[in-house]
């Protein structure tokens, strides 16, 4: 890793997905004299936002209210969301979504030209905006194309950030990043920094997440001293394709698709999710009920059906069936054409004529970099937004279609506050930061290029063991024993990681080196997930303990905070209370009569 050059801007954004691009535009538009750097390990339109399918929530229709969106989000989160943050989010959602419409996003429309909405799981009233079933793709491309309008957004495409640079006053002032094309380590400096690097689903073997979702930003913040919050909460989406883990969107159930077990029975009715309506009933699908229950509960129901021997065994493991046939070809092609394309290509079945085999799949990390509702971390000048951040509006279970909106609302919020910080704190010591970047280059070189070629293990060996440990230890149902085993394996892997052996010791486009660095990030995230899970001796939302089966508000109506220990010992876990404004914790009910009670 040769030392590269130094590049100075006003605000540095790490990550070019939905949140990073929204933040870039927010700054570029409001501060035309500012130079904004967007540093991304891939070209922005490759970012994982691109794969989101079903839609983005914002309450705009006359039959909906902001209060309903707030309540659905808080109850969906099993009361672990901060209610002030949720209120801000829900209020900002409509203007942000309209803004994206003004920027050209091709939202699906009603005959009168207004934006169309569809229902999603855990929603009392339909409020999901959609662009057929490629919503994330259209949002990402609309945002990316809009950034091309602003000359003051400077892109660092295919630059892999590996370390945050912190000045003598403890303020975050940039990052060290490897330019993939040359292998040089650059110091990219600014007056404030926003991390928007997405989630860490690749900690697990069976995930909807793309290869790039390796928790790099979470790891960088963790190592700089920011806590990772609520990392024990991992969302399994109930409908992934077996084998590949490719997502079949919740919109397929929002449009009326049903889940059946091996007997063709709609098994969700056995798990307190309400009674099914016949698919021909005009009221089907009932909202906040059955197939439109929340993701955590639906994924848990699958496991219980499996334990009861009522799932279908295939060569890719156990599945249930997602049946869309009654929707008919015309509706499937109009509203969820990508589902048909994916099922045909990757499962070899046509959902117009056959049910789709599905099983739960790791989809989203509710936890992340600890930030407040201004998107600020505990390090001055450092902000985070999107899946890598934990505000928290998602609590113990995120509602489908809140994450895309979150990218916009908190991307813009982070941009606004980072710009303000940059204006208020303009000066920093360039040479001290350059030295840190040089040190980082030397660290990477020592760790991966100077190591002896003998004795070390391959990346795939360690990654496969990590996958097994996390799937077995920190899956949909966990207990002390399984989590302790996961913690022990992660610790063992961290030791072996120090002796990793890579074949490629060259500079230009060394993707084996980036895979090695990504594995380091995954290990950090896994450590926080397993230890936070072990300490939380209750069941809440997506965190279900077989040895502590009840929610325990007295002890755990609190966010976990995992702090990295520089000496390599296990993370310190602290707690901070959840902010409750108007919605005291209550029973989380779905099915008939669920949802916000009106006075």
């Amino acid at each position, binding site marked *: 890793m040769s030392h590269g050059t130094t590049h100075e801007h006003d605000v540095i954004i790490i990550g070019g997905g939905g949140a990073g691009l929204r933040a870039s535009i927010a700054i570029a538009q409001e501060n035309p004299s500012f130079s904004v750097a967007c540093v991304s390990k*891939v*070209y922005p*339109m*490759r*970012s*994982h936002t*691109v*794969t989101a399918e079903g839609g983005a929530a914002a309450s*705009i229709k006359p039959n909906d209210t902001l209060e309903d969106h707030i309540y659905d989000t808080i109850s969906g989160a099993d009361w672990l969301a901060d209610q002030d943050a949720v209120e801000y989010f829900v209020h900002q959602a*409509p*203007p*942000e979504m*309209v*803004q994206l*419409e*003004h*920027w*050209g996003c*091709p939202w*699906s*429309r*009603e*005959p*009168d*030209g*207004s*934006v169309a909405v569809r229902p999603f799981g855990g929603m009392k009233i339909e409020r999901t905006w959609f662009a057929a079933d*490629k919503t994330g*793709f*259209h949002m990402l*491309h609309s945002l990316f*194309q*809009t950034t*091309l*309008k602003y000359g003051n957004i400077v892109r660092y*495409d295919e630059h892999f950030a590996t370390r945050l640079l912190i000045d003598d006053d403890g303020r975050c002032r940039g990052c060290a990043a490897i330019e993939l*094309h040359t292998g040089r380590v650059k110091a990219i400096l600014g007056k404030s920094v926003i991390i928007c690097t997405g989630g860490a689903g690749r900690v697990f073997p069976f995930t909807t997440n*793309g*290869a*790039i979702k390796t928790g790099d930003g979470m790891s960088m913040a963790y190592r700089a001293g920011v806590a990772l919050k609520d990392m024990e909460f991992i969302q399994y989406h109930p409908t992934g394709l077996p*084998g*590949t883990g*490719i997502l079949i969107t919740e919109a397929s159930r929002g449009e009326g698709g049903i889940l059946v077990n091996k007997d063709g029975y709609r098994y969700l009715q056995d798990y307190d999710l309400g009674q099914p309506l016949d698919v021909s009933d005009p009221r089907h699908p009932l909202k906040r009920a059955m197939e439109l229950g929340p993701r955590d509960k639906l994924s848990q129901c699958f496991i219980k059906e499996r334990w009861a021997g009522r799932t279908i065994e295939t060569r890719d493991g156990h599945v249930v069936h997602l049946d869309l046939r009654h929707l008919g070809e015309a509706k499937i092609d109009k509203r969820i054409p*990508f589902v048909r394309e*994916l099922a045909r*290509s*990757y499962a070899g079945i046509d959902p117009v004529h056959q049910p789709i085999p599905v099983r739960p799949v790791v989809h989203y990390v509710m936890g992340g970099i600890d930030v407040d509702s201004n998107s600020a971390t505990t390090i001055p000048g450092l902000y985070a937004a999107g899946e890598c951040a934990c505000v928290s509006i998602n609590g113990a279970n995120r509602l489908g279609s809140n994450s895309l909106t979150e990218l916009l609302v908190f991307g813009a919020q982070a941009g606004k506050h980072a710009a303000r910080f940059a204006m208020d704190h303009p000066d920093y010591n360039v040479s001290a930061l350059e030295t840190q970047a040089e040190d980082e280059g030397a660290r990477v070189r020592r760790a991966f290029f100077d190591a002896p070629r003998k004795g070390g293990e*391959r*990346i*795939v060996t360690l990654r496969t063991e990590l996958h097994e440990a996390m799937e077995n230890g920190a899956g949909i149902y966990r207990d002390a024993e399984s989590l302790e085993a996961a913690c022990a394996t992660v610790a063992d892997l961290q030791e072996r990681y120090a002796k990793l052996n*890579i*074949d*490629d010791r*060259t500079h*230009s*486009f*060394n*993707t*084996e080196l980036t*895979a090695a660095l990504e594995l380091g990030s995954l290990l950090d995230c896994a450590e926080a997930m397993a230890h936070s899970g072990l300490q939380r001796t209750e069941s809440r939302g997506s965190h279900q303990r077989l040895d502590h089966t009840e929610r325990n508000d007295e002890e755990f109506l609190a966010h976990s905070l995992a702090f990295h220990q520089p000496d390599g010992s296990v993370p310190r876990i602290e707690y901070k209370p959840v902010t409750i404004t108007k919605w005291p914790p209550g029973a989380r009910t779905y099915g008939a009569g669920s949802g916000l009670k009106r006075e």
Partner: protein
Amino acid sequence: MDAKDTMTLEIFRYHPETDSEPRFQPYEVPYNEDWVVLDAINWIKDHVDGSLTHRWSCRMGVCGSCGMMVNGEPKLTCAAFLKDYYPFGIKVEPLVNFAVERDLVVDMDGFMDKLQEVKPYIIRDDVNDTSEGEYRQSPAQLAQYKQYSMCINCMLCYAACPVAGHEDEFLGPAALALGHRYNKDSRDQGQAERLDVMLAGEAIWGCTFVGECTVVCPKHVDPAGAIQQAKAMAAQEFFKGFVMPKGTGA
């Protein structure tokens, strides 16, 4: 499936730091009928040769990263199944008509510049405040441009295009289709500005209407059709002698 079955992938290798010219390297991979070509390449990188270099991410045909030449045809390797080639060998090369950075990775800078040139964003004289709500757009108006908005920037169409490789001024299928997408959007008023770019030099006129771009598009975009329509619009604009004031819309 016989677990011992294998297939041979012959992969283009070139490293600018060590190679004076490219070569092909054969790799034997397990044959799995569910695998796509990308799975086989990842298996090689993980288990056999960590220096093999390629781009990929979503492995579901939407991020656009993994376009390569598979037996001479531009393909998304996450959507090209081994079973469609079995038992014969597969030759994998980087997309043609681009400079090679390393192995299967091509230089995208020129492509990115071309995307930017067509001004792929909404241009309006009067910008509504978000408090006024969304711009109305009927389903029929949406249908005018929707298919052109489906491009994933995978660049297969540039690899298929006989002009893109040797005419630098030609903006190419994806960029022109994207410009056309905004020209056809009822919310946009920037057509005249965009057509100025498209009319210059060989920007659009380079196209000889071979139509291969449309044939290879994995997302069923019709860049060839977009280019023909845009040429017609550009010609109209030309004959108006550029007297139409900017921003009067489509």
